[in-house]
């Protein structure tokens, strides 16, 4: 076999070996094994380790992935198998050497947790299948076989007959779909959408009463982040200004509601709804004050300035200077919730209703905005500032308007957030919050409402439901951002370009109109 075939596979195996070693060092292997065991219905008590079978399963899956990704698409089956064999062997050898070190740690009873915090002896034993000195050999065999299996799977699934089979399934499905569409009675076509919305509305009304306070909490959190995502999308996605200090506007809303509705430090007790309005207003004022001086700044400079602005707000909230006014690092406690028609309206079910209603309103407002004259002006500014200017779009007003509207959404979400938690402090408004919201946009898809909902659910909802991945959430975030930018910059659920040309009766048809999603400078 020639060198061109061996060397890339060797490299693959080596890379995956290092990845696996890092997994072990941060205890990610045990986490995945735990999740697998839960998937198969095993009852794992928090803090205890999963069965060794699931560790084996995880390693097999990992090896199969290595084999799958190493076999190149256009190679012959034997070549594929050879590539997978080389990669699997390399992976096995790398991990075998690593196993020797780990085994030495176990035998000598050295505890390295002072330096490598996650490397507990129990986890090491689990990784070594509790077999001591022969575990390197076990790993070597396991990875080689698994890698070959992965390659075999690729050969089978990507083969001629398999693709014909899938095509057949697909065309059959499409035929069924067309038939179903033809058979749909007219009234369903007419009112189908309406009925669907009604169903969703009914579900949204009844589900929060049934599924318990924890689910309400998660749904509320996701809803709030959807609102925040929509706000940031107006700034980043529609008008094309990268903003890294969005949490500052969120803080404006939260602190307005908190200061006007808590017994300490001021005891104004204005009531939730008026203070929510004031919060939105404060966020808009902050946006104007920030926006006016920095308008016309270069894209990356704007990002850094807004980051600085967010940090300034957070440090000021935390500092001694404003402790008497904002409660300092300890924040504000006992924020009073909203009332409706004189009745207290602040159980967790009520908050879910409020958030869902506000979320739907935000989506409607966003949709209207996107198609409006202003929305199109924003897109024009984003695509090409100079051309937009030449056609009579006022750059400054439009950019500032986008900033203000986005900030208003953030203020709204912040106010509800503070009242729902009955507490807000400087730590609720860290840089990480801004980054999370930006990640939601990018992971889900810029300018796409389903994308934002999907992103909010993936990044805020899933970690709440799967408590095991809590510790690894930010790590996965960071990695995901890089991977998304490289492989899929338009997001998981990319936006489709609204058919503005047709709406306007404009006959201009562009070939290859620029993509809607993604970020352009």
């Amino acid at each position, binding site marked *: 076999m020639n060198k061109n075939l061996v060397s890339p596979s060797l490299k693959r195996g080596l890379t995956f070996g290092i990845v696996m070693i890092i997994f072990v060092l941060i205890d990610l292997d045990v986490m995945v094994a735990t999740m697998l065991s839960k998937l198969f219905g095993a009852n794992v008590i928090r803090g205890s380790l999963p069965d060794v079978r699931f560790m084996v399963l995880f390693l097999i899956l990992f090896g199969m992935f290595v084999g799958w990704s190493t076999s190149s698409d256009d190679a012959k089956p034997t070549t594929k198998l050879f590539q997978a064999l080389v990669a699997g062997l390399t992976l096995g050898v790398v991990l075998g050497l690593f196993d020797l070190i780990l085994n030495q740690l176990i035998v000598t009873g050295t505890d390295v947790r002072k330096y490598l915090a996650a490397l507990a002896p129990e986890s090491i034993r689990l990784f070594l299948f509790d077999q001591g000195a022969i575990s390197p050999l076990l790993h070597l065999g396991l990875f080689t076989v698994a890698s070959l299996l992965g390659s075999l799977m690729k050969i089978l699934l990507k083969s001629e007959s398999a693709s014909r089979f899938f095509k057949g399934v697909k065309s059959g499905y499409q035929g069924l779909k067309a038939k179903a569409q033809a058979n749909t009675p007219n009234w369903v076509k007419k009112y189908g959408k309406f009925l669907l919305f009604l169903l969703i509305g009914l579900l949204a009304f009844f589900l929060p009463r049934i599924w318990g306070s924890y689910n309400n909490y998660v749904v509320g959190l996701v809803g709030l982040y959807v609102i925040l995502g929509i706000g940031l999308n107006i700034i980043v996605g529609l008008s094309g200004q*990268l903003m890294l200090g969005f949490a500052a506007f969120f803080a404006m809303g939260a602190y307005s509601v908190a200061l006007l509705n808590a017994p300490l430090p001021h005891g104004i007790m204005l009531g939730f709804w008026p203070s929510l309005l004031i919060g939105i207003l404060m966020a808009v004022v902050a946006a104007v004050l920030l926006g006016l001086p920095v308008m016309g700044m270069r*894209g990356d400079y704007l990002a850094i300035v807004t980051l600085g*602005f967010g940090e300034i707000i957070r440090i000021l909230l935390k*500092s001694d200077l404003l402790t008497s006014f904002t409660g300092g690092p300890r924040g504000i406690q006992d924020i009073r919730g909203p009332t409706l028609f004189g009745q207290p309206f602040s159980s967790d079910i009520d908050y879910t209703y409020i958030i869902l209603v506000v979320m739907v309103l935000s989506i409607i407002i966003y949709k209207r905005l996107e198609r409006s004259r202003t929305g199109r002006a924003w897109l024009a500014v984003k695509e090409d500032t100079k051309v937009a200017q030449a056609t009579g779009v006022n750059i400054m007003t439009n950019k500032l308007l986008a900033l203000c509207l986005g900030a208003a959404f953030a203020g709204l979400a912040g106010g509800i957030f503070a009242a729902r938690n009955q507490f807000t402090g400087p730590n609720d408004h860290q840089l990480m919050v801004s980054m999370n919201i930006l990640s939601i946009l990018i992971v889900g898809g810029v300018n796409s409402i389903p994308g934002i909902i999907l992103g909010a659910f993936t990044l805020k909802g899933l970690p709440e439901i799967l408590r095991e991945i809590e510790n690894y959430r930010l790590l996965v975030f960071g990695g995901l*951002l*890089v991977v*998304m930018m490289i492989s899929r*910059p338009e997001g998981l659920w990319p936006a489709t370009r609204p058919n503005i040309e047709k709406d306007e009766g404009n006959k201009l048809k562009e070939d290859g109109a620029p993509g809607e999603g993604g970020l352009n*400078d």
Partner: protein
Amino acid sequence: MENEIRPPRRYKRSKLPKLVRWIFGLIVLSYFFWRLYTVFIVQNEYTPDIWVRLLISGLVIGGVYSLIAIGYTLVYGILRMINFAHGEVMMIGTFAGYFVFEATNAIRFTSSTGEITSLSNAQPFLSILLAFIVGMTVAATFGFLLEKIAYRPLRKAPRLIPLISAIGASIFLQNLAQLLFSPLVRDYKNPDLIARGQGWAITVAGARLTIPYTGVLTFSLSIILMFALYTMVRKSKLGKSMRAVAADKSTAALMGIDVNGVISQTFIISGMLAGAAGVMWGLHNGLVYYYVGFMPGIKAFTSAVLGGIGNIPGAMLGGMLLGLIESIGPTALGISYQLKDVLAFVILIIILIFRPSGILGEVLSEEKV
């Protein structure tokens, strides 16, 4: 009538942003002057030795900022991108140095005089040298990998895409370090020769104060490294090709310069400087944890912008200036020391608003993209 073509609205450049900008600047300036007046003329309670002490600490911190800022400036000059994860490269350097000192401290033997000493105390120069070499190598490796994995595939993407990738890499590295080494704040084990808090005693205006050994080491080493880098960029072949790539990538490629190689080498060099800065930070401040790189990273970026991003002497000057402002500023303005970060950010915003090209101007990026 409904088919009538509306004439395009006449575009009028609004004077409002400029006005607001100047009002904003005036408010900040007059606040600074008022505070300075209060502290120096009205209160006037500080003796010269306090200022000298602040000056010394400012120069030390400034040296570290300068080293990191050079990394930002080099990368910006060549790729026109803000390497947001540069602070994390520094953090990795700090950790590498920490482990070297832990290791040399753990090796114990009986010296000729019969006492039990550790390697780091018996051979302090060796262990410091080792820490710097390991810190710089590890940081350079991470800088190289960072470029290769997170930035190289995005060479032709719009400008904001690499920035977001860099933010992702920064979050990733921070959390990797947190998961690997736990969120614990650890103490740097300096060799006794340069123990923290020890230093030469000098007398200024009748008051005694100490110049810390770590400070002297940090400052002199950063000056040496900066000088070496400057000479390298001016004189060596690599420096020449770096300047060529910064000026025009495609022409440089036509002249037979390996553009990708030069970019990789740039990341290695900036990683080395950041690693050295990280070890210095650990030796001088004594704390290491996963978040240690974030603030110095942002501050160093501020310094790079302050001096004019893309401009190497500008980064050095900006770093020193920012270090001085940060250490002297809170006292001179009579505000709480907690607010020194706010001061740095306010200066960043003011610079970007009024003179985005920095003090010395952007040398490497003429075309404003």
